[in-house]
């Protein structure tokens, strides 16, 4: 499944989900990001790896940070970048999504970076693009956000030595979180000892344990002895649909406060994919505190996205060689 992410030679062609990718490939992404991470500190923040390539950021859902880090990553690799922000309500349904896609493809695009509010949208687009085009999933519905997961793994690797020894807790709205799904898959693939999810039953998927996680409904129990705490953003529209009574009650039960953080190991790191709702899922003193690595995550996002883009476009040579 998802095997169309890889070329026949086993190189990354699309990057749609972590599911189905093997540990050496995830490690390769992080190793390559490590090489790229120095570039941001140079005077000339550019390498010519993707010179002459055209990358289109195709965002059907609002995003500032993800879009700008993708843009920055592409520019640091010397690619040409176009941004399309498409209001999903303006495009009617699937047909026009394909129309949009084929129109952009006709401009000889090499890569689409796609964000869409529907699960499976990136997969759908990857199934319909020309064979020389790569698709990077920048978040699809509640399904996957693989570059976010990889930058989180990269951040964890910088702070902790061996994945196998770690205990990681993910707190909050797992049900609607593409970030959590990709993180859980990445953490399992990298062999993390124990993955926990903490949240009320209304925000956890049914049969959640089949994802290979331990389920907790209580912060004190769930955070006991963990090395990494990942808090998820709580979409405030979740109060509709009777998933939660109020943001205040959520904060009381699942908000990461200094008191609750004490259940974790003293050297535990605190992560958040952003943007943060202060006082809803996390206390300001924790978000800005010494254990927080939240801003590092943003920085690492650029290196990870450079790594993934260069690997996917590098595999285009597989295609052109096959053509020749």
């Amino acid at each position, binding site marked *: 499944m998802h095997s169309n992410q890889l070329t026949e030679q086993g190189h990354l062609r699309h990057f749609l989900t972590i599911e189905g990718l093997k540990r050496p490939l995830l490690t390769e992404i992080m190793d390559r990001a490590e090489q790229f991470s120095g570039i941001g500190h140079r005077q000339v923040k550019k390498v010519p790896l993707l010179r002459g390539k055209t990358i289109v950021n195709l965002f059907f859902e609002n995003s500032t940070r993800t879009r700008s880090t993708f843009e920055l990553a592409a520019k640091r690799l010397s690619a040409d970048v176009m941004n399309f922000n498409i209001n999903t309500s303006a495009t009617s349904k699937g047909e026009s999504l394909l129309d949009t896609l084929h129109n952009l493809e006709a401009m000889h695009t090499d890569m689409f970076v796609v964000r869409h509010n*529907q699960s499976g949208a990136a*997969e*759908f687009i990857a199934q319909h693009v020309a064979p020389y085009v790569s698709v990077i999933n920048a978040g699809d519905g509640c399904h996957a956000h693989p570059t976010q997961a990889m930058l989180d793994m990269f951040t964890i690797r910088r702070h902790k030595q061996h994945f196998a020894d770690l205990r990681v807790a993910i707190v909050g709205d797992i049900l609607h979180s593409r970030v959590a799904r990709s993180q859980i898959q990445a953490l399992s693939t990298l062999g993390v000892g124990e993955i926990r999810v903490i949240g009320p039953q209304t925000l956890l998927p049914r049969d*959640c344990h*089949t994802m290979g996680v331990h389920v907790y409904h209580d912060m004190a129990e769930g955070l006991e002895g963990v090395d990494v705490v990942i808090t998820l953003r709580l979409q405030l529209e979740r109060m509709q649909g009777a998933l939660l009574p109020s943001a205040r009650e959520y904060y009381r039960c699942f908000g990461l406060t200094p008191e609750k953080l004490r259940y974790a190991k003293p050297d535990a790191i605190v992560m958040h994919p952003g943007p943060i709702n202060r006082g809803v899922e996390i206390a300001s003193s924790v978000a800005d505190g010494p254990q927080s690595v939240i801003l590092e995550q943003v920085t690492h996002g650029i290196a990870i996205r450079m790594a993934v883009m260069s690997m996917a476009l590098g595999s285009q040579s597989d295609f052109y060689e096959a053509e020749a």
Partner: protein
Amino acid sequence: MRMVITGGRVIDPASQLDTQQSVYIDNGKIIAINDHLADFYADLTIDAGGMIVCPGLVDLSARLREPGQEHTATIDSETRAAVAGGITTLAVPPDTDPVIDNPAVVELIEDRAKKAGRVMVLTVGALTQKLDGQLLAEMAALKQAGCVGVSNGLNAIKNSVVWRRALEYASTLDLTVFINAADPWLQKQGCVHEGTVSARLGLSGIPESAETISVSRDLLLIEQSGVRAHFHNISSGRAVKMIREAQERGLPVTADVSAHHLHLCEHDLGNYDALSHVLPPLRSVRDREQLQQGLRDGVLQAIASHHQPLDADAKLGPFAETQPGISALETLLPLTLKLVEDDELDLLTALATLTCQPAEILGIDAGQLKIGASADICIINPDAHFECWPRQFISAGKNSPFSGWLFRHQAAYTLFQGKLVYQR
């Protein structure tokens, strides 16, 4: 026109007949099932050597899209597909556009079907006007116009008072009520079965309780009103159990299952395969087993196509935005008999679920091979061995998840009222 079908294995599930004899047809009727009929000169002889001769299939629910969505499919296109699948009688649910809530629409459909002249197309009338769940439809007029039952289609009646009154009124008129059991709120929320696959793919789920809540409410009101009711397209093992208990209590309740729910499960969604997007959703492997068991036990009396032809565009998009539905007329027979090949059902039971049992549910005289009956006959090649290729469907809807499946059984000839309406 005088016709004889020779050399076939003649099976009539209603009378448990399974014999190697000839079927003689004259003036549109079966006149004899015999070794040899003296002084019979046939205009047409069909050699059915090595084949199964059985009643034409009776399909409890097929959407033909006419009137209302003729750009998708028509009565003409879909009846052609039906006979290619061995179907000679089918019932159309009321959710056409306009809705079958007045005799004019019934007449329109019957006219078009008569013009096509290859399948008996029956109509199921609306329970409520425009299917909006508020005012009762003129059921007596619908019955008089020829409707074989009443239903609110896929639009659940939310208001329990209206639902109760609708059942009571239908009961007064001795009409069977056809029910698609789904709690509207729990169903509307999702697009796939709520379980491991929905968790993995990040698609919103429809819990089993969407079906069972509705079935339990409906059973209580059926008991209270005394109406005869039929559940369409049961998808969960739990609902089978509830219906079994109701039948044991003596309630006049029957039920059917779709051929796709007997073969597919949630895992067939694979990589967001929109062709497997269907309502009710494909459920767990366990549910599928319990549906098959329900057939063996006779709790589910019929297998129906629940045919929903769609435009190609309808399945092109991210999963949740695609339209649910499967084009199923041409796979009903091969999929049902695949259960026989797989030793899940015996041949007689399988054919009964496609012929006499659905006919009995509709309260019509069809689905049997007997002297004097209309010669609606399906001749099946049990060794056709073909690969399913939806793009070659006769139906205007090519939306089938069974592409590439290998089937053995296939309709070779279909007779409707003694007329050869299909020949492979």
